[in-house]
Protein backbone atom coordinates (compact mmCIF):
# COMPACT_ATOMS: atom_id res chain seq x y z
CA UNK A 1 0.00 0.00 0.00
CA UNK A 2 2.86 2.36 0.78
CA UNK A 3 4.17 1.94 -2.74
CA UNK A 4 0.84 3.12 -4.09
CA UNK A 5 0.73 6.10 -1.75
CA UNK A 6 4.22 7.22 -2.65
CA UNK A 7 3.50 6.70 -6.33
CA UNK A 8 0.47 8.95 -6.03
CA UNK A 9 2.41 11.49 -3.96
CA UNK A 10 4.99 11.60 -6.72
CA UNK A 11 2.37 12.04 -9.42
CA UNK A 12 0.82 14.97 -7.59
CA UNK A 13 4.11 16.46 -6.49
CA UNK A 14 4.26 19.11 -9.17
CA UNK A 15 0.62 20.06 -8.94
CA UNK A 16 -0.43 23.03 -6.85
CA UNK A 17 -1.48 22.07 -3.35
CA UNK A 18 -4.95 23.46 -3.63
CA UNK A 19 -7.92 22.05 -1.77
CA UNK A 20 -9.34 20.83 -5.07
CA UNK A 21 -6.20 18.88 -5.87
CA UNK A 22 -5.95 17.42 -2.37
CA UNK A 23 -9.53 16.28 -2.58
CA UNK A 24 -8.93 14.73 -5.97
CA UNK A 25 -5.87 12.94 -4.72
CA UNK A 26 -7.74 11.60 -1.68
CA UNK A 27 -10.52 10.27 -3.88
CA UNK A 28 -8.16 8.60 -6.28
CA UNK A 29 -6.21 7.10 -3.41
CA UNK A 30 -9.41 5.68 -1.93
CA UNK A 31 -10.23 4.06 -5.26
CA UNK A 32 -6.76 2.64 -5.65
CA UNK A 33 -6.93 1.29 -2.13
CA UNK A 34 -10.24 -0.44 -2.79
CA UNK A 35 -8.91 -1.87 -6.01
CA UNK A 36 -5.75 -3.08 -4.30
CA UNK A 37 -7.62 -4.83 -1.50
CA UNK A 38 -10.00 -6.44 -3.92
CA UNK A 39 -7.13 -7.75 -6.05
CA UNK A 40 -5.53 -9.22 -2.93
CA UNK A 41 -8.73 -10.95 -1.92
CA UNK A 42 -8.98 -12.30 -5.47
CA UNK A 43 -5.76 -14.11 -4.69
CA UNK A 44 -3.31 -11.81 -6.44
CA UNK A 45 0.13 -11.45 -4.96
CA UNK A 46 1.00 -8.14 -3.35
CA UNK A 47 3.46 -7.06 -6.05
CA UNK A 48 1.08 -8.07 -8.76
CA UNK A 49 -1.77 -6.13 -7.17
CA UNK A 50 0.39 -3.02 -6.81
CA UNK A 51 1.47 -3.33 -10.43
CA UNK A 52 -2.09 -3.57 -11.70
CA UNK A 53 -3.31 -0.67 -9.55
CA UNK A 54 -0.49 1.59 -10.68
CA UNK A 55 -0.83 0.62 -14.34
CA UNK A 56 -4.50 1.58 -14.18
CA UNK A 57 -3.80 5.01 -12.75
CA UNK A 58 -3.46 6.60 -16.15
CA UNK A 59 -1.71 9.75 -17.19
CA UNK A 60 -1.42 12.71 -14.85
CA UNK A 61 -1.35 15.07 -17.87
CA UNK A 62 -4.96 14.21 -18.45
CA UNK A 63 -5.88 15.68 -15.08
CA UNK A 64 -3.63 18.68 -15.54
CA UNK A 65 -5.31 19.44 -18.84
CA UNK A 66 -8.79 18.91 -17.52
CA UNK A 67 -8.36 20.90 -14.33
CA UNK A 68 -6.40 23.57 -16.18
CA UNK A 69 -3.89 23.73 -13.42
CA UNK A 70 -0.63 25.48 -13.81
CA UNK A 71 2.17 23.17 -13.13
CA UNK A 72 4.40 24.10 -10.28
CA UNK A 73 7.83 22.89 -9.54
CA UNK A 74 8.94 21.68 -6.21
CA UNK A 75 10.96 24.28 -4.46
CA UNK A 76 9.28 27.22 -6.15
CA UNK A 77 7.30 27.77 -3.06
CA UNK A 78 8.04 26.72 0.46
CA UNK A 79 5.78 23.74 0.79
CA UNK A 80 4.56 22.65 4.19
CA UNK A 81 4.81 19.05 5.31
CA UNK A 82 1.73 17.08 4.40
CA UNK A 83 -0.30 15.15 6.98
CA UNK A 84 -2.60 12.33 5.93
CA UNK A 85 -5.76 11.39 7.77
CA UNK A 86 -3.93 8.56 9.49
CA UNK A 87 -1.16 10.82 10.65
CA UNK A 88 -3.65 13.36 11.97
CA UNK A 89 -5.51 10.69 13.90
CA UNK A 90 -2.26 9.24 15.22
CA UNK A 91 -1.23 12.65 16.37
CA UNK A 92 -4.52 13.31 18.14
CA UNK A 93 -4.33 9.94 19.87
CA UNK A 94 -0.74 10.47 20.95
CA UNK A 95 -1.52 13.97 22.10
CA UNK A 96 -4.32 12.69 24.34
CA UNK A 97 -2.06 10.02 25.71
CA UNK A 98 0.76 12.38 26.54
CA UNK A 99 -1.76 14.86 27.97
CA UNK A 100 -2.80 12.11 30.39
CA UNK A 101 0.81 11.33 31.23
CA UNK A 102 1.83 14.94 31.80
CA UNK A 103 -1.33 15.64 33.76
CA UNK A 104 -0.65 12.60 35.90
CA UNK A 105 2.97 13.64 36.39
CA UNK A 106 2.01 17.11 37.55
CA UNK A 107 -0.60 15.59 39.82
CA UNK A 108 2.02 13.29 41.36
CA UNK A 109 4.33 16.26 41.95
CA UNK A 110 1.61 18.01 43.91
CA UNK A 111 0.45 14.88 45.73
CA UNK A 112 3.98 13.95 46.78
CA UNK A 113 4.30 16.66 49.45
CA UNK A 114 0.68 16.03 50.45
CA UNK A 115 1.58 12.42 51.16
CA UNK A 116 4.68 13.54 52.99
CA UNK A 117 2.66 15.73 55.30
CA UNK A 118 0.23 12.94 56.07
CA UNK A 119 2.95 10.36 56.77
CA UNK A 120 4.77 12.83 58.98
CA UNK A 121 1.71 13.60 60.99
CA UNK A 122 0.30 10.14 61.46
CA UNK A 123 3.21 7.79 61.33
CA UNK A 124 6.10 9.65 62.85
CA UNK A 125 4.83 12.90 64.26
CA UNK A 126 6.24 16.26 63.36
CA UNK A 127 8.97 16.64 65.91
CA UNK A 128 11.26 13.83 64.98
CA UNK A 129 13.56 14.68 62.20
CA UNK A 130 13.58 10.97 61.35
CA UNK A 131 9.98 11.37 60.32
CA UNK A 132 10.96 14.08 57.92
CA UNK A 133 13.59 11.90 56.32
CA UNK A 134 11.42 8.78 56.04
CA UNK A 135 8.60 10.81 54.61
CA UNK A 136 10.90 11.90 51.82
CA UNK A 137 11.01 8.40 50.35
CA UNK A 138 7.51 8.42 48.86
CA UNK A 139 8.02 12.05 47.92
CA UNK A 140 11.02 11.25 45.78
CA UNK A 141 9.35 8.11 44.46
CA UNK A 142 6.38 10.13 43.24
CA UNK A 143 8.61 12.77 41.73
CA UNK A 144 10.75 10.12 40.03
CA UNK A 145 7.66 8.55 38.46
CA UNK A 146 6.51 12.01 37.39
CA UNK A 147 9.87 12.76 35.77
CA UNK A 148 9.74 9.46 33.88
CA UNK A 149 6.24 10.35 32.67
CA UNK A 150 7.38 13.81 31.55
CA UNK A 151 10.37 12.47 29.67
CA UNK A 152 8.38 9.67 28.06
CA UNK A 153 5.57 11.98 26.96
CA UNK A 154 8.10 14.49 25.69
CA UNK A 155 9.87 11.87 23.63
CA UNK A 156 6.62 10.56 22.19
CA UNK A 157 5.57 14.03 21.09
CA UNK A 158 8.98 15.00 19.78
CA UNK A 159 8.28 13.57 16.32
CA UNK A 160 5.22 15.81 16.00
CA UNK A 161 7.20 18.94 16.72
CA UNK A 162 7.02 19.98 13.05
CA UNK A 163 3.28 20.58 13.39
CA UNK A 164 3.96 23.79 15.25
CA UNK A 165 5.55 25.21 12.14
CA UNK A 166 2.47 24.55 10.06
CA UNK A 167 1.24 21.56 8.10
CA UNK A 168 -0.81 20.85 5.03
CA UNK A 169 -3.99 18.95 5.83
CA UNK A 170 -6.53 17.62 3.30
CA UNK A 171 -9.64 19.76 3.22
CA UNK A 172 -12.01 17.01 4.34
CA UNK A 173 -9.92 16.22 7.37
CA UNK A 174 -9.57 19.88 8.09
CA UNK A 175 -13.31 20.35 8.23
CA UNK A 176 -13.61 17.26 10.41
CA UNK A 177 -11.02 18.79 12.74
CA UNK A 178 -12.85 22.09 12.79
CA UNK A 179 -16.02 20.27 13.78
CA UNK A 180 -14.20 18.37 16.51
CA UNK A 181 -12.62 21.54 17.79
CA UNK A 182 -15.96 23.32 17.96
CA UNK A 183 -17.58 20.35 19.64
CA UNK A 184 -14.78 20.29 22.15
CA UNK A 185 -14.98 23.92 23.18
CA UNK A 186 -17.97 23.61 25.57
CA UNK A 187 -16.35 20.59 27.24
CA UNK A 188 -13.12 22.48 27.64
CA UNK A 189 -14.79 25.54 29.19
CA UNK A 190 -16.91 23.38 31.49
CA UNK A 191 -13.89 21.57 32.87
CA UNK A 192 -11.89 24.77 33.09
CA UNK A 193 -14.60 26.18 35.31
CA UNK A 194 -14.66 22.99 37.38
CA UNK A 195 -10.89 23.34 37.84
CA UNK A 196 -11.08 26.98 38.85
CA UNK A 197 -13.90 26.25 41.31
CA UNK A 198 -11.85 23.40 42.81
CA UNK A 199 -8.95 25.76 43.35
CA UNK A 200 -11.11 28.48 44.84
CA UNK A 201 -12.75 25.96 47.18
CA UNK A 202 -9.47 24.35 48.21
CA UNK A 203 -8.39 26.96 50.84
CA UNK A 204 -11.96 27.08 52.06
CA UNK A 205 -11.88 23.34 52.73
CA UNK A 206 -8.69 23.79 54.70
CA UNK A 207 -10.32 26.44 56.86
CA UNK A 208 -13.48 24.38 57.37
CA UNK A 209 -11.57 21.22 58.30
CA UNK A 210 -9.28 23.10 60.67
CA UNK A 211 -12.23 24.81 62.32
CA UNK A 212 -14.29 21.67 62.68
CA UNK A 213 -11.58 19.22 63.69
CA UNK A 214 -9.20 21.56 65.45
CA UNK A 215 -5.73 22.71 64.55
CA UNK A 216 -4.34 19.15 64.77
CA UNK A 217 -6.30 18.22 61.70
CA UNK A 218 -4.46 20.91 59.80
CA UNK A 219 -2.43 18.34 57.93
CA UNK A 220 -5.58 16.53 56.79
CA UNK A 221 -6.85 19.88 55.59
CA UNK A 222 -3.66 20.48 53.68
CA UNK A 223 -3.83 17.01 52.21
CA UNK A 224 -7.36 17.64 50.99
CA UNK A 225 -6.36 21.06 49.71
CA UNK A 226 -3.42 19.69 47.76
CA UNK A 227 -5.51 16.83 46.37
CA UNK A 228 -8.08 19.30 45.11
CA UNK A 229 -5.38 21.45 43.58
CA UNK A 230 -3.80 18.36 42.01
CA UNK A 231 -7.10 17.36 40.46
CA UNK A 232 -7.66 20.89 39.17
CA UNK A 233 -4.19 21.02 37.65
CA UNK A 234 -4.76 17.63 36.00
CA UNK A 235 -7.93 19.03 34.47
CA UNK A 236 -6.10 22.13 33.21
CA UNK A 237 -3.28 20.12 31.73
CA UNK A 238 -5.34 17.36 30.15
CA UNK A 239 -8.15 19.39 28.65
CA UNK A 240 -5.80 22.22 27.73
CA UNK A 241 -3.47 19.90 25.86
CA UNK A 242 -6.24 18.08 24.01
CA UNK A 243 -7.64 21.45 22.93
CA UNK A 244 -4.22 22.68 21.90
CA UNK A 245 -3.84 19.57 19.77
CA UNK A 246 -6.75 20.61 17.57
CA UNK A 247 -5.68 24.23 17.56
CA UNK A 248 -2.15 23.39 16.56
CA UNK A 249 -3.37 21.39 13.57
CA UNK A 250 -5.83 24.08 12.58
CA UNK A 251 -3.46 26.90 13.44
CA UNK A 252 -6.18 28.77 15.29
CA UNK A 253 -5.46 31.48 17.77
CA UNK A 254 -2.34 31.45 15.72
CA UNK A 255 0.29 29.39 17.25
CA UNK A 256 1.91 32.74 17.02
CA UNK A 257 5.31 33.70 18.29
CA UNK A 258 3.76 35.80 21.00
CA UNK A 259 1.73 32.95 22.37
CA UNK A 260 4.58 30.52 22.15
CA UNK A 261 6.55 33.06 24.12
CA UNK A 262 3.84 33.19 26.78
CA UNK A 263 3.70 29.42 27.00
CA UNK A 264 7.42 29.33 27.41
CA UNK A 265 7.08 31.82 30.24
CA UNK A 266 4.65 29.53 32.05
CA UNK A 267 6.79 26.46 31.44
CA UNK A 268 9.91 28.21 32.59
CA UNK A 269 8.22 29.67 35.66
CA UNK A 270 6.86 26.33 36.84
CA UNK A 271 10.07 24.48 36.13
CA UNK A 272 11.86 26.92 38.44
CA UNK A 273 9.23 27.41 41.13
CA UNK A 274 8.63 23.76 41.98
CA UNK A 275 12.18 22.53 42.35
CA UNK A 276 12.86 25.75 44.26
CA UNK A 277 10.04 24.92 46.65
CA UNK A 278 11.52 21.45 47.18
CA UNK A 279 14.97 22.91 47.81
CA UNK A 280 13.64 25.41 50.33
CA UNK A 281 11.69 22.62 51.98
CA UNK A 282 14.72 20.36 52.30
CA UNK A 283 17.09 23.10 53.48
CA UNK A 284 14.71 24.45 56.06
CA UNK A 285 14.04 20.90 57.19
CA UNK A 286 17.56 19.56 57.47
CA UNK A 287 19.39 22.70 58.50
CA UNK A 288 16.80 24.54 60.54
CA UNK A 289 14.81 21.48 61.63
CA UNK A 290 11.71 23.36 60.67
CA UNK A 291 9.76 20.24 59.64
CA UNK A 292 6.79 21.36 61.69
CA UNK A 293 6.11 24.43 59.62
CA UNK A 294 8.10 24.27 56.39
CA UNK A 295 5.65 21.97 54.53
CA UNK A 296 3.47 25.04 54.19
CA UNK A 297 5.61 25.96 51.24
CA UNK A 298 3.91 23.28 49.11
CA UNK A 299 0.30 24.30 49.55
CA UNK A 300 1.31 27.91 49.07
CA UNK A 301 3.29 27.18 45.92
CA UNK A 302 0.57 24.90 44.60
CA UNK A 303 -2.16 27.42 45.21
CA UNK A 304 -0.25 30.31 43.73
CA UNK A 305 0.84 28.51 40.60
CA UNK A 306 -2.53 26.86 40.07
CA UNK A 307 -4.31 30.18 40.45
CA UNK A 308 -1.88 31.78 38.06
CA UNK A 309 -2.28 28.98 35.51
CA UNK A 310 -6.07 28.90 35.78
CA UNK A 311 -6.48 32.64 35.52
CA UNK A 312 -4.03 32.78 32.65
CA UNK A 313 -5.84 30.06 30.69
CA UNK A 314 -9.23 31.60 31.31
CA UNK A 315 -8.06 35.03 30.25
CA UNK A 316 -6.51 33.60 27.11
CA UNK A 317 -9.71 31.75 26.23
CA UNK A 318 -11.82 34.85 26.62
CA UNK A 319 -9.32 36.98 24.83
CA UNK A 320 -9.83 35.06 21.60
Amino acid at each position, binding site marked *: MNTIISYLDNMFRNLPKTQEME*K*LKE*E*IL*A*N*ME*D*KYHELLSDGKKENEAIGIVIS*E*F*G*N*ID*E*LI*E*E*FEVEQQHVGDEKSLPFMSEEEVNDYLRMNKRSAKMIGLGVMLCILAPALLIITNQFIFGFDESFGGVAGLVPLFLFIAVAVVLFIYAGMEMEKYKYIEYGVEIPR*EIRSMLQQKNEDYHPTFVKFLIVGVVLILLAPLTLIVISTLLGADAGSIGVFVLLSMVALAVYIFVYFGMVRDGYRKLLRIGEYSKKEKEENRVIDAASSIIWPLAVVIFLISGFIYEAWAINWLIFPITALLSAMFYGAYKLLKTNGR
Partner: protein
Amino acid sequence: MISSDVIRGYNDTIILYLLLDHPSYGYEISKKIKEMSDEKYIIKETTLYSAFNRLQKNGYVESFYQEQSHGKRRTYYRITESGVNYYYEKCQEWEVTKEVINQFIKEVNFK
Protein backbone atom coordinates in the same frame (compact mmCIF):
# COMPACT_ATOMS: atom_id res chain seq x y z
CA MET B 1 -8.22 -4.30 -24.49
CA ILE B 2 -9.56 -1.19 -26.14
CA SER B 3 -7.25 1.76 -26.39
CA SER B 4 -8.48 4.81 -24.58
CA ASP B 5 -8.08 6.94 -27.71
CA VAL B 6 -10.85 5.10 -29.51
CA ILE B 7 -13.32 5.36 -26.70
CA ARG B 8 -12.48 8.90 -25.58
CA GLY B 9 -15.61 10.59 -26.88
CA TYR B 10 -17.82 8.12 -25.06
CA ASN B 11 -16.43 7.98 -21.55
CA ASP B 12 -18.98 10.55 -20.45
CA THR B 13 -21.79 8.49 -21.96
CA ILE B 14 -20.62 5.35 -20.19
CA ILE B 15 -20.43 7.10 -16.83
CA LEU B 16 -23.82 8.76 -17.25
CA TYR B 17 -25.37 5.40 -18.13
CA LEU B 18 -24.04 3.92 -14.88
CA LEU B 19 -25.50 6.82 -12.91
CA LEU B 20 -28.97 6.58 -14.48
CA ASP B 21 -30.39 4.25 -11.83
CA HIS B 22 -28.68 5.46 -8.70
CA PRO B 23 -25.80 7.65 -7.54
CA SER B 24 -22.40 6.03 -7.39
CA TYR B 25 -18.75 6.75 -6.66
CA GLY B 26 -15.44 6.40 -8.46
CA TYR B 27 -14.42 2.86 -7.70
CA GLU B 28 -17.88 1.39 -8.14
CA ILE B 29 -18.16 2.98 -11.56
CA SER B 30 -14.77 1.82 -12.75
CA LYS B 31 -15.53 -1.69 -11.49
CA LYS B 32 -18.82 -1.80 -13.35
CA ILE B 33 -17.18 -0.61 -16.56
CA LYS B 34 -14.67 -3.40 -16.27
CA GLU B 35 -17.35 -6.01 -15.58
CA MET B 36 -19.82 -4.90 -18.23
CA SER B 37 -17.11 -4.68 -20.90
CA ASP B 38 -15.93 -8.16 -20.02
CA GLU B 39 -12.63 -6.64 -18.94
CA LYS B 40 -12.07 -5.31 -22.47
CA TYR B 41 -12.18 -1.73 -21.25
CA ILE B 42 -10.58 -0.62 -18.02
CA ILE B 43 -10.98 3.07 -17.37
CA LYS B 44 -7.95 4.81 -15.88
CA GLU B 45 -8.27 6.83 -12.68
CA THR B 46 -7.17 10.00 -14.42
CA THR B 47 -9.68 9.48 -17.24
CA LEU B 48 -12.46 8.85 -14.75
CA TYR B 49 -11.78 11.94 -12.68
CA SER B 50 -11.27 14.16 -15.71
CA ALA B 51 -14.70 13.00 -16.85
CA PHE B 52 -16.26 13.66 -13.43
CA ASN B 53 -14.82 17.15 -13.43
CA ARG B 54 -16.07 17.83 -16.96
CA LEU B 55 -19.53 16.43 -16.29
CA GLN B 56 -19.82 18.45 -13.12
CA LYS B 57 -18.70 21.66 -14.80
CA ASN B 58 -21.35 21.15 -17.48
CA GLY B 59 -23.99 20.48 -14.86
CA TYR B 60 -24.63 16.90 -15.94
CA VAL B 61 -23.80 15.44 -12.55
CA GLU B 62 -23.75 16.71 -8.96
CA SER B 63 -21.44 15.46 -6.25
CA PHE B 64 -22.17 14.90 -2.60
CA TYR B 65 -20.52 13.20 0.33
CA GLN B 66 -21.72 9.97 1.77
CA GLU B 67 -20.45 8.00 4.73
CA GLN B 68 -19.72 4.40 3.97
CA SER B 69 -20.39 1.50 6.28
CA HIS B 70 -16.77 1.41 7.46
CA GLY B 71 -16.77 5.13 8.22
CA LYS B 72 -14.96 6.39 5.14
CA ARG B 73 -16.40 9.41 3.44
CA ARG B 74 -16.68 9.26 -0.32
CA THR B 75 -17.69 11.58 -3.08
CA TYR B 76 -20.78 10.27 -4.78
CA TYR B 77 -22.10 11.50 -8.11
CA ARG B 78 -25.73 11.91 -9.03
CA ILE B 79 -27.01 12.50 -12.56
CA THR B 80 -29.01 15.69 -13.13
CA GLU B 81 -31.94 16.23 -15.46
CA SER B 82 -29.77 17.90 -18.07
CA GLY B 83 -27.38 14.99 -17.62
CA VAL B 84 -30.13 12.55 -18.57
CA ASN B 85 -30.99 14.66 -21.63
CA TYR B 86 -27.36 14.83 -22.63
CA TYR B 87 -27.09 11.06 -22.24
CA TYR B 88 -29.97 10.47 -24.70
CA GLU B 89 -28.46 12.94 -27.14
CA LYS B 90 -25.23 11.00 -27.02
CA CYS B 91 -27.12 7.74 -27.58
CA GLN B 92 -28.64 9.17 -30.77
CA GLU B 93 -25.28 10.48 -31.82
CA TRP B 94 -23.79 7.03 -31.36
CA GLU B 95 -26.44 5.40 -33.52
CA VAL B 96 -25.50 7.76 -36.35
CA THR B 97 -21.78 7.35 -35.72
CA LYS B 98 -22.13 3.58 -35.76
CA GLU B 99 -23.97 3.65 -39.10
CA VAL B 100 -21.41 5.97 -40.62
CA ILE B 101 -18.37 4.09 -39.41
CA ASN B 102 -19.92 0.77 -40.40
CA GLN B 103 -19.99 1.99 -43.98
CA PHE B 104 -16.22 1.90 -43.92
CA ILE B 105 -15.73 -1.36 -42.14
CA LYS B 106 -14.91 -4.50 -44.10
CA GLU B 107 -15.77 -7.93 -42.90
CA VAL B 108 -12.39 -9.30 -42.07
CA ASN B 109 -11.57 -12.87 -41.46
CA PHE B 110 -9.23 -12.80 -38.52
CA LYS B 111 -7.89 -16.26 -39.08
